[in-house]
């Protein structure tokens, strides 16, 4: 599993960076969410995202063969999606969280299904917790897509920009044959196609109908 290791570390750090930034946004914006349950859940999810980021940074540290005391995480490594840090309102937050969670869930699932013991051990709990994050984001995405007034249009615009960036990243991953050949990710997982299908099923046709 040495071939493709650099690419794999890059993926792990990309996921960690996005979770790190998303955790910050979920607190900053989520505290002023539209209702109490949504705000409390957003802040609880932020704790989860920051915990996942820490776990993934530590994993990347080990993958690089570094030894000694784990570094304190004070900032991302610069691999977060552009949109993640530019999120400033609730609609943008849901669009960001939805895009990040849905795309990463597919990638983490592909890692898990590769069946490598170290990977399975590292992400088993994370993947289970991520299921709740995906459910929260999907629930809110569907709700905003079905809302009234200008909300569905604004949500669609926010989502389109974010989906484009995440999709481009998935296309790049799928083209990296070394990742699959070295057993870091299960081959034939059709990440981009499944990502498109999920967006279509959850949001796209509903938003188009309301836009």
């Amino acid at each position, binding site marked *: 599993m040495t071939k493709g290791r650099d690419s794999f570390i890059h993926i792990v750090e990309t996921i960690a960076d996005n979770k790190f930034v998303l955790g910050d946004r979920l607190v900053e914006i989520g505290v002023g969410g*539209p209702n109490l349950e949504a705000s409390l*859940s957003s802040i609880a999810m932020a704790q989860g995202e920051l915990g996942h980021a820490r776990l993934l940074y530590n994993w990347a540290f080990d993958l690089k063969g570094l030894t000694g005391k784990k570094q304190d995480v004070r900032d991302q490594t610069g691999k977060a999606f552009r949109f993640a840090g530019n999120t400033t309102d609730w609609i943008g937050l849901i669009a960001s969280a939805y895009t990040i969670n849905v795309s990463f869930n597919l990638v983490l699932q592909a890692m898990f299904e590769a069946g490598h013991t170290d990977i399975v051990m590292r992400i088993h709990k994370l993947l289970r917790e991520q299921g709740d994050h995906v459910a929260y984001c999907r629930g809110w995405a569907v*709700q905003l897509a079905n*809302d*009234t007034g200008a909300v569905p249009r604004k949500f669609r615009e926010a989502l389109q920009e974010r989906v484009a960036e995440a999709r481009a990243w998935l296309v790049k991953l799928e083209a990296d044959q070394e990742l699959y050949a070295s057993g870091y990710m299960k081959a034939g997982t059709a990440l981009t196609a499944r990502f498109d299908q999920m967006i279509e099923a959850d949001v796209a046709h509903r938003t188009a109908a309301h836009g």
Partner: protein
Amino acid sequence: MNSSSKQKKEYNVFTRIKRGDDLVMVGTVAAETDQLAKVYATFVYDEEDWVEMCVVPREEMTWIRQPEGLFEKWGDGR
């Protein structure tokens, strides 16, 4: 978000701490869908590692007996 666009429902949250313990109502959540109610309950009532947890729409509960309002006899229907 336009709160009128979708009606929220009240859900009662029930949990069991460990096998053999009683199933206890620990609180409520208000949510637009069953799926969101599950997620809200998971995140809000996370003080224990519950062995069982469920949400029940309050309107789905069939009551056999309920207490009368404390001030009903003075005409306050609460």
